[in-house]
């Protein structure tokens, strides 16, 4: 599949603004034979509601930024390829991947039993958890902080919001006594602030961006505060289409790149920059 496309793109590659990655001396060069278009690392993600993974820079909307943008750039550099984000609606990432519209998905992707049937997964590049966020002036949580012990059952009988399709939605569904609100697109920070719900449960990077002010225009949101340690730890991985003829090679190369980034401290730097660095990363070998 896509054979013609490859040839065509290769044939007229001259017109594409490619910036061949200059191989930095000192770092091991990783081959790029698994890529559909040589010299171009195409990854699928959704930037529309993608902060802080991949999104438009609020201070200069011309730029796409986000911690995964930086990871992809670093990986591409190792492979001497140009990174190219292929915008894909989050709900359609899976079919688009299976249709070989890009090399791999990298958009806070997790391993699920369903996905295992059709996808190969890389080594984890981030270990994330779920973070509760409440109003700062909520007297019920006045003496709780990120080091406190907060569990899902603490929110029984209360309203907790998260995004449609988020892993948190599944966890919330496990306790029927918690009243779950699922939001499509716009996350419920305002709803918490406007006292429409009591808390939200989101991935750590999201809480870091919206509450701790990790982004470029970021300043901490004093109206909200995260409470409790991250729960339900899981890994972000890169997803590759099993049916892609180069799947195995690509997997190997991606894993090599991730290992290299873990080793040379590039990942740690990125996570620190985005206020996402925490103790859990040691479990996947970043130190």
């Amino acid at each position: 599949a896509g054979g013609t496309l490859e040839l065509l793109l290769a044939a007229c590659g001259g017109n594409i603004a490619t910036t061949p990655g200059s191989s930095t001396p000192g770092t091991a060069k990783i081959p790029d034979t698994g890529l559909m278009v040589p010299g171009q690392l195409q990854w699928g993600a959704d930037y529309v509601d993608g902060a802080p993974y991949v999104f438009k820079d609020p201070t200069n909307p011309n730029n796409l930024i986000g911690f995964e943008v930086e990871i992809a750039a670093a990986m591409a550099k190792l492979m001497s390829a140009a990174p190219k984000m292929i915008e894909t609606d989050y709900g359609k990432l899976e079919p688009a991947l299976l249709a070989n519209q890009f090399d791999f998905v990298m958009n806070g992707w997790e391993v699920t039993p369903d996905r295992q049937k059709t996808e190969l997964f890389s080594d984890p590049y981030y270990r994330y958890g779920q973070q509760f966020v409440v109003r700062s002036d909520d007297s019920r949580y006045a003496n709780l902080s990120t080091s406190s012990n907060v569990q899902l059952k603490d929110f029984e009988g209360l309203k907790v919001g998260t995004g449609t399709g988020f892993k948190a939605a599944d966890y919330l569904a496990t306790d029927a006594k918690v009243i779950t609100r699922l939001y499509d697109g716009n996350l419920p920070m305002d709803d918490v602030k406007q006292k429409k719900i009591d808390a939200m449960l989101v991935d750590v990077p999201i809480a870091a961006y919206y509450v701790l002010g990790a982004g470029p225009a970021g300043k901490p949101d004093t109206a909200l505060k995260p409470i409790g340690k991250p729960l339900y730890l899981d890994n972000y991985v890169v997803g590759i289409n099993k049916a892609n003829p180069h799947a195995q090679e690509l997997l190997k190369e991606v894993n090599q790149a991730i290992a290299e980034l873990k080793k040379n401290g590039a990942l740690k730097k990125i996570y620190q920059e985005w206020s996402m660095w925490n103790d859990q990363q040691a479990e996947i070998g970043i130190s």
Partner: protein
Amino acid sequence: MHHAVPSSTSRRRSRLVILDYIFYVAFALAICAFCYYIYTFRNTALLILPFLLQGAGVTIAISLISMILATIFGLLAALGCLSRFKLVRLIATLYVELVRGTPLLVQLSMWYFGIGLFLARLGFSPYATAFQIMTVLQNNSLVPDMFNGIFYGIIALSFNYGAYLTEIFRSGILSVDKGQYEAALSLGLNEGQVMRRIIIPQAIRIIIPPFTNNFITLIQDSSLLATLSVIELEQQTFALAFPLLDSNTKLFVFVLGALFYLIICYPLSRLTRYLETRMAVAY
């Protein structure tokens, strides 16, 4: 409903006319307040304006092309519905009923992931084809990454709206007095001439208002192309708004996006009114 409120008296009117002036003042104040609202966010507005304009451009282009194609689909299917041949009628009716009965979102997926993938397997890729053509013309950078989504999105939109337009065209054609057919036939015009010269020109007058209504809903429905990863005005607005931390600024971006839709759609409803009155000249 000039019927419902007949001759109001001028004495009562004079009292109520004062309310008219109060209204004018209030209306002017409201517009000033809205302008001031935009002014307070002028920095954000200036920052995101180019992006909203670009999104609006995509929306307009998609809607315009879709509407033209939908008109063609609708006209063909309407003529099919009125055809003398049973098979043609059946196909046209089937098209209308199936397409109207299923959600547009599902149709979009079907075109993009169903038919699109099937054609890709056969070696047809709209993106590659367009890229190739534009390469020959030395400006393939004009072909957007989301070209595949736009291509199948436009097909799905126009196919869907073609079904609605079919019904509008059909009822418009049927609303022309039967006597007009008979008069034209008795003068010796053939069926094609009757349609082209007599029936359709008269049907257009009746068709225009619902046609524009559909155009307006099509413009708003074009945002569903988001599922095909097309970033048009609504998705552009979202992409600009969601990463914002300040809720008021975020709300302002939504308001500005809505204003763009208003700017696109409102002239269309004015145009309808204008055409309606212009066409009424002969009547």
